[in-house]
């Protein structure tokens, strides 16, 4: 392997995906699918603003048609210290996109010596989603949510995307994936501007509960195996995932409440 050195005029700068293209490793080169493939799909993810930041959550189930292909997929992942991505869609390209996005943020930070702004990160993800369009036309759709803490405006911000890379900043909350309608309804009813981080975590848990109750492709809390949705908050102190003990407690409370109605 030789060291990638470029002449001043053709230097890819801090752009990692361009660098990969130059060295012949581009992950976005179009694939052609002649037959309908059964590909694992990821499902419901939500994100909402709260006092001092944002909370993101996603279930753990991946499905291939009517079968459950994975029970412990992590669709909500940390992008860097102050941001996270949640992904719904075809699992393979989605995971590749997350991996590349994480690397791009770190690569930029190291090459340039400073981190991208939150808006810059959101914009970068939009480019990745757009690059996936040829694959999306063949059914490999990937639609992420991006959220993080913005040190310019000193609050949490969140964006959702469409398959063409369209980037839409949301003011309050957003849901994506097959269970999005149910999850969004729960949030629409209970979301308030001044929610604390803990309240937002509980509301996200509840939104995923209702989505999994009504949508077969969304996984609920799996008490038997100890698999719970991934829920994380991002504040000025950075990314913090809710641990399994707390999640067990939150879901026990929800189960008790639902059982009593």
């Amino acid at each position, binding site marked *: 392997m030789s*060291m990638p050195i470029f002449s001043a005029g053709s230097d890819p700068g801090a752009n*990692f995906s361009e*660098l990969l293209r130059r060295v012949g*490793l581009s992950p976005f080169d179009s694939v052609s699918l002649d037959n309908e493939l059964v590909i694992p799909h990821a499902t419901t993810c939500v994100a909402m603003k709260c006092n001092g930041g944002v909370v993101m959550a996603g279930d753990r189930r991946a499905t291939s048609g009517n079968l459950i292909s994975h029970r412990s997929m992590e669709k909500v992942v940390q992008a860097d210290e102050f941001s996270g991505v949640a992904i719904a869609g075809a699992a393979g390209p989605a995971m590749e996109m997350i991996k590349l996005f994480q690397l791009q943020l770190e690569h930029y930070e*190291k090459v340039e010596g400073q981190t991208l702004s939150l808006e810059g990160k959101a914009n970068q993800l939009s480019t990745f989603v757009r690059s996936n369009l040829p694959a999306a036309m063949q059914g490999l759709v990937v639609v992420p949510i991006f959220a993080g803490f913005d040190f310019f405006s000193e609050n949490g911000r969140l964006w959702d995307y469409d398959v063409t890379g369209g980037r839409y900043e949301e003011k309050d909350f957003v849901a994506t994936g097959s269970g999005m309608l149910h999850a969004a309804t729960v949030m629409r009813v209970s979301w308030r501007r001044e929610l604390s981080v803990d309240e937002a975590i509980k509301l996200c848990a509840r939104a995923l509960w209702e989505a999994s109750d009504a949508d077969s492709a969304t996984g609920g809390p799996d008490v038997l195996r100890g698999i719970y949705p991934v829920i994380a908050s991002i504040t000025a102190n950075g990314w913090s995932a809710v641990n399994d003990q707390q999640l067990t407690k939150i879901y026990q409370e929800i189960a008790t409440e639902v059982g009593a109605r």
Partner: protein
Amino acid sequence: MNMPYYVPPEQFMKDRADYARKGIARGRALVALQYLDGIALVSENPSATLHKISEIYDRIAFAGVGKYNEFDQLRVAGVRAADIKGYQFSRQDVDARSLVNQYAQILSQVFSEAPKPMEVELIVAETGLEKQQDRLFHVMYDGTVLDEHNFSVLGGDADAVTERLKSAFVVDATLKVAINSAVKALSGPDNKLEYSDLEVAVLERNGKRRCFRRIDGDELNAMFS
């Protein structure tokens, strides 16, 4: 017909080496030293934005002295090589030794073939999971690689700084002691360094993925005893 002048290869190499050494000695010195929980890199650098020390990968740091644009080009190439390797294979497969070999290839090629040699010297430091796995590689302007232990000094009046650091160095020191011995070595008799003259960073065994951390501002000030 004009006959080209004959320059014997010994003279050719010596001229180039002298040229490179002069350029490197003009700059200010930099030291890298092991301490209990990792490797500290300390240099005299009046600029807060043009870094001599930077992060290459999770456990690997880079430091360069000499001509800024030349070692910065090598730094960026190192970040690229490491990120591509980690993307293509695994993060565990990225190691300092392989990077150093690539740097050595480039520097030796430039030294003997390009119109002028690069006026740079580099340190590639890597902190392992255990102290025994820490690595401190010193790459010279002609591609010579030195695998150093305890500490490494480059740039400026390197010999004098090395002598001072030999007496100030403490094995398994705390970070504070390590930084103070580095500053003592860099300072010299007629050059009293303030914390604002310094660029300091560490690779620390902290259990996190990315071990590189800059130490500046109040934290650096507090290190001065």
